[in-house]
């Protein structure tokens, strides 16, 4: 304990140097935490699960996938045709509807992009907001929103950030001029707000509303179908219990004669996302192996610089400690301990502050990779700060500490004399 207090006193002794080193550490840990949070999320979504996994069914060759809506029912059932065929645990269909609330000014703020889907699937199939995994209060709110979306066909559930962008609130109405479905302009009423997080910029509408609008297009256009009428189903999500079930259902879908034109493919969600991320391969590589290591190295240098200055200034003090009976190992521990205390403390403070700032004040990191709206700092990142601080402090202080521990008493005193 005395030794610990001695380390603490030493850290406090040169307040300016300690503060500068701590601030340097904090800002650099801040950047590493941001980078690693993005990489951590991407690693998680592309990691193959072995149980309770999701599969995506899309058009086999083309992107964006555009399948005829009649595929929806059978695909949602995993193309099960025989009594002994396997059925997925759950499913969800996605149709994309995008438009602008101001046709004269098509800015990103004015664009509303909605997933048209079955309302009841919001609480069972959308990642991170499954009703059984949300806190009770949030789950109750979402349950109410879903019920309202079922009741009101023109309802829409919107993320908080998107609502702010379009200057609307709960209960407000607005009209969207269709961009991907030309001439399909829809009026919406905001019936719910997504729990804060991943869906802050997203919106979900009732798929029946979009399909009814496409049907009515035919009635109002002399029986002529909308140009995209046969291409409205974009994705079908299936939940399967394990990899074996996935393989069986994938085979059922591939073998089915129902999906010939266009052909479809079934893959695990992680595999689909990994394919999409392939375009960002070099960018992700750069973040992982260039940016983060370079920042860590800079951090080590900042700490090493501070510690070596400190060691050089305290040569006489270390010589006195040796005379008083301190062993080289103890002096080494003293120096390394100072660095680790400084690094670990400021690293931890930095990640806690980063977590609060990004997740609670900024609503995530907006980084243009793939279709992910915003990236959040995972809770475990708080320990990254501690680990980064300790590791870089160790790396930066080993050489100065060895110098301090191997100091020659006679040499140090002779310089004074």
């Amino acid at each position, binding site marked *: 304990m005395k030794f610990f207090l001695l380390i603490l006193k030493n850290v406090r002794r040169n307040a300016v140097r300690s503060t500068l080193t701590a601030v340097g550490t904090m800002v650099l840990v801040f950047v590493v935490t941001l980078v690693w949070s993005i990489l951590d999320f991407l690693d998680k979504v592309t990691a193959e699960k072995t149980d309770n996994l999701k599969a995506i069914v899309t058009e086999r060759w083309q*992107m964006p996938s555009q399948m005829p809506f009649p595929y929806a029912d059978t695909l949602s059932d995993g193309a099960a045709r025989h009594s002994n065929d396997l059925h997925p645990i759950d499913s969800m269909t996605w149709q994309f509807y995008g438009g602008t609330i101001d046709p004269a000014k098509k800015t990103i703020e004015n664009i509303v992009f909605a997933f048209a889907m079955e309302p009841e699937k919001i609480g069972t199939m959308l990642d991170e907001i499954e009703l059984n995994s949300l806190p009770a209060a949030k789950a109750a709110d979402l349950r109410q929103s879903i019920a309202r979306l079922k009741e009101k066909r023109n309802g829409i559930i919107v993320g908080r950030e998107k609502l702010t962008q379009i200057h609307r609130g709960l209960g407000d109405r607005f009209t969207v001029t269709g961009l991907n479905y030309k001439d399909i302009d829809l009026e919406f009423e905001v019936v719910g707000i997504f729990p804060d997080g991943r869906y802050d910029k997203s919106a979900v509408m009732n798929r029946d509303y979009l399909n009814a609008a496409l049907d009515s297009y035919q009635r109002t256009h002399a029986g002529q179908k909308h140009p995209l009428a046969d291409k409205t189903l974009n994705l079908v999500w299936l939940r399967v219990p394990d990899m074996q079930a996935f393989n069986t259902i994938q085979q059922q879908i591939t073998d089915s004669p129902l999906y010939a034109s266009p052909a479809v493919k079934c893959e695990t969600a992680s595999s689909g996302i990994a394919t999409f991320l392939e375009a960002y391969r070099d960018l992700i590589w750069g973040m992982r192996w260039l940016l983060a290591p370079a920042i860590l190295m800079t951090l080590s240098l900042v700490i090493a610089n501070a510690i070596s200055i400190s060691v050089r200034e305290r040569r006489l003090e270390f010589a006195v400690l040796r005379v008083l009976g301190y062993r080289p190992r103890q002096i080494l521990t003293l120096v390394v301990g100072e660095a680790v205390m400084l690094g670990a403390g400021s690293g931890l403070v930095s990640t806690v502050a980063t977590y609060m700032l990004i997740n609670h004040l900024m609503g995530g990191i907006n980084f243009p990779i793939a279709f992910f709206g915003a990236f959040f700092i995972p809770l475990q990142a708080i320990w990254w700060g501690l680990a980064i601080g300790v590791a870089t402090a160790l790396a930066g202080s080993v050489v100065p500490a060895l110098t301090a521990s191997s100091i020659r008493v006679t040499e140090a005193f002779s310089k004074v004399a």
Partner: protein
Amino acid sequence: MIMTTADLALLAVTRSTIAIWIAGAASVALLAALLLGVKIPLRYLVRNLTVRWRTTLMTVLAFVMVISLLTVMMAFVNGMYRLTQASGQPGNVMVLADGATDESFSNLIAPDIADIENQPGILRENGKPLCSRETYLVVTQPIENPVRGRPQRRFLQLRGLDDSAMTGRVHGLELYPSGSWISDAGVREAGSGNGDPASKKNPGPPEAPIQPLVEAVLGEGVAHVLAADKKHGSNSASAPERLDVGDTFSLGDRRWIVVGVLKSAGSTFDSEIWAKRGMVGPMFGKENYSSLVLRTAGPTEARTLKDYFNSQYKKAAVLAQVETDYFENLSGTNRQFLFAIGFVTVVMAVGGVMGVMNTMFAAVSNRVKDIGVLRLMGYSRSQIMLAFLLESLLIAMVGGALGCALGSLVDGWTATSIVSGAAGGGKFVVLRLSVDLQTLLLGFVLAQAMGVFGGFIPAFSAVRLKPLEALR
């Protein structure tokens, strides 16, 4: 006069360029002023840095890290900007279906196309309008020899064309020698001296007819990407760096043969596969055209034609854009990356400034007596302050120069990315990292700024020392 997005972007780029050059000039002027204005011998200052070489080296290395990272990140964004700025001809007008935010979502029907290309203002060659009818698709390709742990598929960009030679002329693109444009049929018999080893070695059962090979013209970038599959498969160093005329690959349910490679480096066409529209449309389920690109006499005529289609042309609902504007609008991702880079650099620079401050504070505290002597010798407070500031700037200059040199090593490297605009869509691209003079200047300016910020407070603390107290 109404300014277009391209004009505004150009203006922004011009402003930032001017700002960087002004900052660069200011940095050089500051350094020169310090070198000329400091009366304390430069040799003394340099010696102080070399005596404490370990601390100096570590501070320099921190600068090297920050500046080299900035250079690499800027090289990436430069590459993206160059792609979007170099793609497209200022005299071309691109026509999409009205409401389509990108060519991926556009649908134009043949009768409308025929009418549009016969409007006045479009250049003609041998009586034919200089127009390119195009169907743009993004398709998935199962990778032939996937690397373990990497995705099994990739997205490829396919452009179905009625007349590839005409498209080449409209877009100003040429083929490498020995290549040819796609034939009218768009297919070539398998095994007819086309170099397709697959069809020769494994022609299939005798009764099964061998499907003809689909002719393709490849962008240079995608030719490299597809060659990498063969490299992984054969695990041989002799595998080609890029696919060339006569090579084959699989896409959809068919084998394809390369008939030409585009000299397309530096444009988004570098990552595209061109083929006969009559083949790819039915194969991938996109029967309509996605865009029509029209060649006019020049930029002014292109703007006039664009305005005509958007306001006066009533036979079909279309959206016309000058081609360079379309590609400029794809720089939305570039701007986001630029912002991210700016943010990361500033935060890292703060870390670097803390490092140099530590060094300079230590320099001041180690030389308290020196400062006292210098004051007694008649050097003014401001001279001492400038001397310390110059020391800090010397560290910054060396670190900045080394950082720029290290970062410059990535110049010319290729990387994959996506360029896209605010309204969706986008293109998968192979870009070339580019370290230009502006990037180096930016690195130099940042290093100097870090030096000034890091050195100023310690230098200021040095001048507050009283000579006699300092000597005690």
